[in-house]
């Protein structure tokens, strides 16, 4: 059944980034599947008001105060009137928030629950438990997620992290990975799309590397500390010293770029290491196809879309074994290293040796990655989450536990298999958040509810125009998709 979904996040186009493209791709695919999707974000420079993107994706750029790196100032209630207006006029049923640093998303989830809507939250990043900023974010996350219907994480590590941070029931957290648009990341030798995908599938030719051919190692990453630039700075001279026919291409910018440049000058490696500076996302593929190995020295990563993109471009991936990275790619595409300089050098050496002996069939990577990750698949799995929280799937089906177990833990769930909207039930959930925090959260929820009553009285629903929907496409692949959904 089609839903009306609102994606809420601080991060959306025109700002570049992973979360932004995730929201866009997911929304597009959901629209293709017959749902209605709108995106609510804050106004960007030169991008205000209500806009339509391709495929009829409607974007509300709400005017709001931006404080730091595209994150709005967290005013708990000021977003409510306009959010309510949008939700009513678009007849939204499910509010889907993205990114745990976005205050917009947290507020939207709170208000949506007050208004009696289903909520989903997608977490894209990993957080520690030690520093003060993380503690604050975690408390906020706990507040929001106390009363959310379902949470989606991009990797299993991310799920563990989110479950711990927000004290969630692990069963209400689904793991749905990111995906890549494989067409945009095809190797150089691969025929351009669209060929008939299932018909005359041409077998890519294997490229042979002689022992003296130059192997190019590509690094595409923002040059920050947590992207492992220090490891890179330490490892590059050693890799270049032990392998004479190796070159580096480094794309990206950041505060650590200066360290990299110093290293190049100290070791006089300018002719073997090419620094490209910042590269737009559309150009990443053109950089990647110039190389044979992709080196990813990151220190923390929830999913690591870039290594999937690299593998899709037919690059052999050398990456550190941190965060969710070990889950992302199969073993024959990657060489894992510990986040240590010695191990990284050794792993790169191993990768170079494997390429030289032509043991790795990188030309097959693209088609394999295309089968592993697709946004259509992500949209299907997300749709199943929507089905589960709105009661289309039975509770047992969706949460997957035995009926005997149900009594023991569904005390706060309603009988319908979905979370109850009653204020007292919501307050119970928030109250458990902590000695002081619980009371504070309850206060916030009560104020939010009063505000809702106030708005219902002074801005009645029947005075809000219902927006017209974008004309829908006719679903072509209806039957085939449905079959697959059933299988899942």
């Amino acid at each position, binding site marked *: 059944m089609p839903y009306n979904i609102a994606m809420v996040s601080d991060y959306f186009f025109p700002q570049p980034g992973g979360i932004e493209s995730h929201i866009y791709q997911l929304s597009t695919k959901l629209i293709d599947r017959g749902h209605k999707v709108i995106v609510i974000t804050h106004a960007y420079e030169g991008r205000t008001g209500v806009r339509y993107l391709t495929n009829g994706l409607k974007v509300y750029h709400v005017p709001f105060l931006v404080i730091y790196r595209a994150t709005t100032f967290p005013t708990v209630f000021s977003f409510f009137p306009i959010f309510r207006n949008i939700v009513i006029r678009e007849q939204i049923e499910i509010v889907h928030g993205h990114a745990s640093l976005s205050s917009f998303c947290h507020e939207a989830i709170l208000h949506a629950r007050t208004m009696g809507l289903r909520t989903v939250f997608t977490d894209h990043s990993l957080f520690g438990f030690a520093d003060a900023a993380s503690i604050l974010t975690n408390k906020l996350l706990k507040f929001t997620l106390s009363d959310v219907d379902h949470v989606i994480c991009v990797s299993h590590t991310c799920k*563990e992290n989110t479950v711990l941070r927000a004290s969630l029931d692990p069963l209400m957290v689904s793991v749905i990975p990111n995906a890549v648009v494989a067409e945009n990341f095809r190797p150089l030798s691969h025929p351009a799309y669209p060929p008939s995908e299932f018909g005359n599938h041409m077998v890519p030719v294997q490229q042979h590397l002689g022992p003296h051919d130059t192997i190019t190692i590509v690094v595409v990453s923002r040059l920050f500390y947590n992207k492992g630039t220090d490891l890179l700075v330490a490892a590059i001279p050693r890799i270049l010293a032990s392998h004479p026919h190796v070159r580096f291409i480094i794309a990206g910018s950041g505060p650590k770029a200066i360290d990299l440049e110093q290293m190049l000058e100290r070791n006089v490696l300018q002719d073997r290491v090419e620094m490209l500076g910042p590269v737009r996302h559309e150009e990443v593929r053109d950089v990647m196809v110039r190389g044979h190995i992709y080196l990813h020295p990151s220190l923390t990563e929830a999913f690591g879309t870039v290594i999937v993109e690299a593998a899709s471009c037919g690059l052999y991936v050398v990456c550190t*074994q941190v965060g969710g990275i070990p889950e992302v790619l199969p073993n024959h595409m990657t060489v894992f290293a510990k986040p240590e300089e010695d191990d990284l050098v050794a792993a790169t050496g191993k990768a170079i040796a494997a390429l030289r002996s032509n043991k790795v069939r990188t030309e097959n990577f693209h088609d394999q990655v295309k089968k592993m990750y697709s946004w259509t698949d992500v949209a299907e799995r997300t749709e199943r989450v929507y089905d589960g929280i709105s009661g289309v799937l039975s509770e047992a089906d969706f949460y997957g536990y035995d009926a005997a177990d149900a009594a023991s833990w569904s005390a706060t769930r309603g009988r319908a298999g979905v979370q109850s909207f009653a204020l007292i039930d919501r307050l119970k959930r928030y109250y458990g958040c902590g000695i002081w925090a619980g009371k504070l959260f309850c206060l916030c929820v009560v104020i939010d509810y009063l505000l809702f009553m106030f708005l219902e009285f002074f801005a009645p629903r029947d005075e809000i125009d219902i927006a017209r929907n974008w004309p829908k496409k006719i679903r072509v692949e209806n039957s085939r998709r449905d079959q697959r959904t059933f299988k899942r």
Partner: protein
Amino acid sequence: MVPNPAPPPSATITEPLPPLTRSTTLPLYSYRPITTDRTLLAPEDAIYQGSPPRKQSPAVAKAARDLHMTNGPNGTARVSGRTRHKDRPRSGSRRRKGTWKKLLWVNQSYPDNYTDQETFLEHLQRNPRLQPYDFWPLVADSTIIVQHVCSVIIFVVCFVGIFQERVSPVAIVGWGSIATFLGWFLWDWWVGQEESTKPSTTPVSTSTPLDASASSSVSNLLNSNGNGHANGLSSKHSHSASVSSLYSSTSNGHSTNGHSKPPTPPPNHPNHPSPNSSLLSHRTSLRLSTAKSALLIYFTLLGLSPILKSLTRSTSSDSIWTMSLLLFAINIFFFDYGSPPSRSSVGGGSKNIPASLSTNAALMASTVLASRLPSTGQVFSLTLFSIEVFGLFPVFRRYARQRSWRGHVTLTSFLVAGAGGGVGLILGHGGDGNGYFDWPWKSGLLGGIIGVLVTGLVMGGCSWWLIGLQKYKNEIHGPWDPARPVIRRDDY
């Protein structure tokens, strides 16, 4: 959602993670064999790339197991050790073939919210670096703080004594100087002993920094003096780095903050004495330079005292008391209580700043206090005494603690008794001839006893409290934490 019951804080922290409160997700769909219309990969496809995906070979199970072994590099050893198949609640393995794998790239026949009981949070570590404190070592470590607080108290008591003109300033500075000289003598003897036991180590030359900074200003000189001694003594092997860092400790601190490159060690060691210079002449030159700097300080202070005397004439006394209180608080809070061995290994560049802040605060406080005194002699005495107490005494204390534990304890008890006695003398009208038991040192003795008792109680109580608080420590580490890169720094 019920907020997940956080495991109750328990005294035994090293116990394994409590199991999940929910039962594991049981797969409820019947397992469908791999159908022909699927477009996503299954785990076995990765191994048998040549084979068409629909082929169900008997090797699939083995392949899947292999895959798990190769792809779960962190936890395979543990997992295979456990009896995960038996542990799985009843219908799990019966209804579904294939085990769940913590992988994203395979199309698994489990629902997305499936939570594997065995592997979920298996890499979670709680309090991995926890060292349970013991009572007596904690008490012993707290003596460092007690020593410093006591020396501050003694200084304040001396000031009050001079201010109320009960004690002659000359007596104070005289005894102080004698004690300092004795301490220096002892220290020199210890250094000599150490060098004779370790003849291979290249001797430390601290003459250069002393000379270089002696001309700048009093506080700077003392600071570098103290640092020079501390660094030179505590880290024998990194003396050249410490020497180079002494020239500009602040700029060094800025350039080496964080985890960036270490201060580049000088390629050669120009400060080393030439090989033919004997050990004795080196030691003698060291002593000479120390005496020289001492004389320099002495005369500088003598010259500055009249200026210092009128420094704060236009400020009211209340402000001065408040200010000096604040400055002493800064001194106590920012004092470097760290033990020397831990400092010598990781670069002390960034740690120098709070230490110098502490010393500077104390010297400023004493300068401000001294400016309240009426006569030049008093000002000079107090300032000199403050330099001895705040500049040189900490260095001696640190070294003494390293050298002899017994001496350290003795010093601590003397300091505690002295501080308590001093406070008692100041508060009571000790020795002024009033009262029944007119014994001049009565209130002093009483103060000393009370001080020792209170200090003992506080030390014990605080240690016990800290140990009690430790059970609330709940530090969570896991694969989501940013990894700490291990970089061999000496490589480039």
